[in-house]
């Protein structure tokens, strides 16, 4: 109901909204009997005139009055006349809605004209992003200052060096600066601008830069190391894509090439192994196929996901709406959606053999393999010798459980094997067919990838295939910008290459704008166009459209250099402004000052580890397993038919305390510290992190085992390094000395807590039970069994009873610093 109202409100009466879909449905479902050859009931629906004239029962359509139109009434299947006939014939509700609206709008038979520039029914401003960028001249500051002046707003002064260094270091590397960095910058005799430029260059050249900015990209592409859904198997080679993204940012890979590699690296640059790894992008979304899923559906879920993701990530368009009906707000007809989908119709999942690269981390492979082998051996031992017959119900469930775990561990073992989580055009080799450990039986065969196109699915439903859509791109882009749509080959190979080239092209009005807008968003808190994944009508319009176009042009001119754009933005006065009040610009839409922000979940965790001196320097390789809340680690979780294994942290501290980007990203189990602080969804593209403040964050930061462990490590570091511990603690955490009163309070606290800890010996951590029980699907009875401790020993973290009461007291101070507002906000 509401959908209809919106349709009409936005499109007015003259708009042939959905006409294309309607006509396609008429052709598919009606003309067989009422037009092409047959005119049952003397009704011919081929033209508007003949439909209005109607048949033996009278007019089929009364323009403007769906409720009085026989055509619509028969489609509803409520009266005696039911069309298309039979219970199976009834069209999906969405299609019925579309028919009603179409008739109410006058039932136009002409599809929208697409000759020359015709704004059609879209406001010029609503399709701003479809139009070619205007030529503009200036700089970040010139555009920003002009708007400030126009609005009579005074900008804030530039921030002091200390504030600025913390801001830019976290921004570019995701880590706070060291006290030594601060000292060097404060002492740099060069003028502020020059000294700051040196800092920016240093940070851009650091390896931590790529780790920080790859995390942003992984948010957008909804990266994970597992499949999601019921079994949530590991994607054992997905980490190579994560490391590829880090390398791409660190080497400033030209963005056009970065796009081409991710969409069609296998077709365009087969000799470049990086490009094959890059196609992991196409498979980053959640996907699972099992004996309980319908192959046609899981395939369609992927096709929808990849179509939507490609448009979302690279073009900033939300194409998902057009799956069922022509997009309500943007010039994106359903036909275009399926044309773009047809580009992927021949794409098969492939686990491609691909030797490891020099740049890929293989340190620790041997240890990792040995650990996994031990786990496999342990699991095999739990099953071995158990014959199928004569098992007690408890034993049966235990065998089922261990059999599943074995399959999971064996799948995980592929992480050390030289394969790429990739695709091929057509199923090139049967042995590459990568449909998951439980899916091969009923999934697609080689021949299934040969199709020329895909069916337009009426109402988005697989059960209602409409006409065939051949591979193509979004037609409105050519219409509004003049950038010609390419010919996309109908052969199995080359479709994605053509699509990638069409996107990664200076003439595509979206591509550069979307990326510079994302970069702006991460630097300034929100994009010039605030919805970085939606450049359509419903997204917020850019606050500074000329600046956006200028940046896009600069981006292209620079050879699509992301680092060049960082410099344009960071070296501006706009970026260097202090935070503070601006009564005339309260939401900071004009960028009169810097908007303070909370650091993201990963940056918070990494900063705690770094300050504590525990952050591992190791980079890359398969995901590692940090210590997470023990109750969560041991939480029994269902998989198909049984329970999943417990979460097992990595044995060594070095592996546990790596930067968060290297943490294994499991869709069904997120580290609660990350989850609580608004971590990114791994199921949908995350255009921007939320920063809601909720009480569970206080619980997490104040009470979690993680916080207490890191605080203790921080204290141990302070005590180990000697000197004035309070002074040093503030310098490391806040990059400043404590004020006199802060120092007084801190010392008083540490002294009081030292006394307290002398009186109070530390408590031992409780031992959690590994007893498991499952309600059997067979009997409905509970069956209990024991899960094993991991077959390895843990390198221990520092424990309260390892240290003196004075160090435990310093840990109390450290915990307070981690919880303080100054630690979590950036100014």
């Amino acid at each position: 109901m509401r959908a209809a109202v919106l349709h009409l409100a936005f499109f007015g009466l003259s708009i042939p909204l959905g006409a294309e879909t309607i006509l396609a449905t008429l052709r598919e479902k009606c003309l067989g009997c009422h037009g092409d050859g047959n005119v049952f009931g003397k009704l011919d629906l081929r033209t508007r005139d003949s439909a209005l004239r109607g048949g033996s029962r009278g007019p089929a359509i009364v323009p403007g009055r769906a409720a009085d139109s026989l055509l619509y009434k028969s489609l509803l299947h409520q009266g005696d006349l039911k069309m298309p006939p039979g219970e199976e014939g009834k069209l999906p509700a969405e299609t019925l809605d579309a028919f009603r609206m179409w008739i109410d709008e006058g039932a136009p038979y002409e599809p929208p004209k697409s000759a020359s520039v015709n704004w059609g029914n879209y406001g010029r401003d609503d399709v701003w992003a479809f139009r070619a960028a205007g030529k503009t001249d200036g700089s970040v500051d010139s555009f920003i200052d002009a708007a400030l002046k126009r609005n009579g707003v005074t900008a804030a002064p530039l921030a002091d060096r200390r504030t600025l260094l913390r801001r830019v270091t976290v921004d570019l590397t995701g880590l706070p600066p060291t006290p030594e960095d601060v000292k060097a910058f404060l002492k740099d005799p060069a003028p502020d601008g020059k000294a700051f430029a040196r800092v920016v260059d240093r940070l851009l050249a650091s390896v931590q830069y790529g780790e920080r900015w790859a995390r942003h990209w992984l948010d957008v592409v909804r990266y994970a190391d597992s499949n999601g859904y019921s079994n949530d198997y590991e994607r054992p080679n997905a980490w190579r894509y994560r490391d590829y993204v880090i390398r791409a940012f660190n080497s400033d890979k030209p963005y056009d090439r970065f796009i081409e590699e991710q969409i069609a690296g296998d077709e365009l640059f087969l000799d470049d192994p990086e490009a094959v790894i890059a196609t992991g992008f196409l498979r980053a979304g959640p996907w699972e196929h099992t004996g309980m899923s319908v192959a046609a559906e899981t395939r369609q879920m992927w096709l929808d996901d990849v179509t939507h993701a490609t448009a979302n990530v690279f073009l900033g368009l939300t194409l998902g709406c057009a799956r069922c009906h022509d997009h309500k707000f943007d010039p994106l007809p359903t036909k275009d959606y399926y044309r773009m989908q047809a580009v992927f119709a021949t794409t098969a999942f492939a686990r491609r053999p691909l030797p490891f690269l020099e740049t890929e981390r293989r340190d620790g492979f041997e240890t990792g393999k040995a650990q996994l082998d031990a786990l496999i051996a342990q699991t095999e031992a739990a099953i071995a010798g158990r014959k199928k017959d004569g098992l007690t119900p408890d034993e049966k469930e235990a065998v089922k459980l261990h059999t599943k775990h074995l399959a999971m561990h064996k799948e995980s073992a592929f992480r050390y094997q030289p394969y790429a989580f990739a695709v091929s055009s057509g199923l090139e080799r049967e042995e590459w067919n990568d449909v998951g450990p439980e899916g091969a039986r009923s999934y697609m065969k080689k021949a299934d990838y040969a199709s020329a196109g895909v069916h337009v699915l009426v109402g988005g439903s697989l059960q209602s295939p409409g006409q065939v859509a051949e591979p193509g791109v979004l037609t409105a882009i050519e219409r509004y910008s003049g950038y010609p749509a390419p010919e996309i080959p109908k052969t199995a190979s080359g479709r994605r290459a053509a699509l990638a080239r069409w996107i990664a092209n200076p003439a595509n009005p979206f591509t550069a704008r979307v990326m510079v807008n994302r970069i702006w968003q991460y630097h300034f808190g929100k994009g010039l166009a605030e919805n970085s994944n939606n450049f359509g009508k419903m997204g917020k319009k850019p606050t500074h459209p000329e600046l956006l176009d200028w940046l896009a042009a600069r981006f292209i001119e620079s050879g699509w250099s992301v680092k060049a754009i960082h410099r344009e933005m960071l070296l501006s006065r706009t970026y260097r402004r202090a935070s503070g009040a601006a009564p005339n610009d309260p939401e900071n839409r004009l960028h009169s000052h810097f908007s303070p922000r909370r650091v993201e979940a990963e940056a918070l965790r990494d900063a705690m580890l770094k300050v504590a001196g525990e952050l591992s320097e190791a980079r890359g390789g398969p995901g590692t397993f940090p210590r997470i809340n023990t109750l969560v680690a041991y939480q029994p979780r269902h998989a198909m038919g049984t329970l999943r294994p417990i979460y097992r942290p990595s044995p060594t501290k070095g592996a546990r305390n790596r930067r968060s980007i290297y943490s294994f990203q499991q869709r069904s189990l997120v580290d609660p510290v990350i989850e609580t602080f608004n971590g990114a969804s791994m199921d949908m593209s995350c255009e921007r992190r939320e920063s809601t403040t909720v009480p569970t964050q206080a619980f997490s930061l104040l009470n979690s085992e993680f916080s207490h462990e890191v605080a203790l490590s921080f204290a141990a570091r302070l005590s180990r390094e000697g000197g004035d511990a309070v002074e040093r603690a503030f310098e490391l955490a806040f990059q400043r000395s404590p004020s006199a009163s802060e120092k007084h309070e801190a010392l008083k606290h540490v002294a009081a807590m030292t006394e307290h800890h002398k009186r109070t010996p530390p408590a031992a951590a409780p031992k959690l039970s590994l007893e498991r029980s499952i309600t059997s699907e067979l009997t409905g009875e509970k069956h209990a069994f024991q899960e094993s401790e991991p077959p390895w020993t843990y390198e221990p973290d520092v424990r309260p009873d390892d240290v003196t009461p004075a160090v435990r007291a310093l840990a109390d101070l450290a915990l307070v610093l981690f919880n303080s507002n100054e630690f979590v906000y950036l100014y």
Partner: protein
Amino acid sequence: MKILPASISRRELLLGSSAGLGRIALASQLAQDDARAGALTPKKGHFPAKAKRCIFLLMEGGPSHIDTFDPKPKLDQLHMTEFTKNPTKFAAAMNTGKRYYVRSPFEFREAGSIGIPMNRLFERFAKVADEVCFYRGMQAESVNHPTALYHLNCGNQFGGDPAVGAWAAYGLGTENQNLPAFVVLPDKAYPQGGSANWSNGFLPAHYQGTALRSEGPPILDMNPPPGVAEAEQRANLELLSKLNKAHQLEHPHHAELAARIESYELAFRMQAEMPVVVDISKEPKATRELYGVGHADAEVDSLARRFLLARRMVQAGVRFVQIVVSGWDSHDYIEKAHGARIRSLDQPMAALLADLKRTGLLEETLVVWAGEFGRSPDNGVRGEGKAWGRDHNAKAMTVWLAGGGAPRGTIVGATDEAGGAAVECVHPLKNFHVTLLKLLGLDDARLTYLHAGRNKQLSQTGGEAIRELIA
């Protein structure tokens, strides 16, 4: 703007992890003082409605309608008739091949004033049948657990969208600011798909379902790790408050600082109130026994505790409580498996309705019982023809509603004579979602949130309320 106060009495009250009742009363009073004009403030719905809150009993695994509330005598005739279902494009491997019809191994009785059929094992539940509206017309879309579960809980087969409880909290806020608005009481083992089943999705994090834990503190990290004394934490918080205060003076224009300080205060009000709410020993012995707390069968005891807790939660002002009861996926030996499930569920479930009614809460509390799909009248041939069970079936199922403006003691809709598909009052799941919201006073079409450039809603694309399910 609230700063953690220096006065000892208030501090004690906020930090008390062994809080007594006196402290709680005071805490609630304080909570009202500074009731946040924020995300969770109670809000008026779109229409007047009886239901002010909801208890959603999620039956994970797909309970068989044929063996619970929708008996099919026809299957007695068809029993063991073999046929072959050819693989089609739209069938899972599970549902194809050689199959036979399976009769229900259960006896049925008629309950309530109109004679509602139900499995005879529902001994106590039969006695409250006149409170319940059984709906047999619903159809899901997926026959795969995780996608069907996401669909039932979040309106979309892909994970990542907000759960029904999150939408309800978003639309109505909550009555008790010291407790989460949306509470989940999972089985010991989490369902497939995990916590995404009670996610806030793209809604702000205030609306996320909080899963209460059956061991340890009810909310994760609600209490400090073992060995951290109350005095230590109090001293830490005092220092934190001083640092934050000084910091706030440096950044007077940064409004979020006050909110973050407030969130610590709220956390500790929650820390004080939650243990009291979850302490079911506070209930009279008769009530505990009514539910089956302390029952010799550990399964009954475990369910009883959660069902009683659900009542305590809604009574304390929680907007939406979801209980997850798993174990319904009976592909084989349905007599044993479903039988055991029903036996342990019967008493707590009947007690919940009786207790809500007795306390006058039922009028304003909507109780919903639903699985992610129903089960098939036929089964694959396995276990030498003795292991009778049923596969998944999205086309037919029974769900029921009670209280909160739902019809009483009736049956709506029907399935075909073998129970293979709904044939009367047939509605897709999204219409059921629209109906639930409507019963809570919310209009799915107006309960929207702009995300990724679209006004999103629970039903995804809009739907209609099932008027037969609204009294």
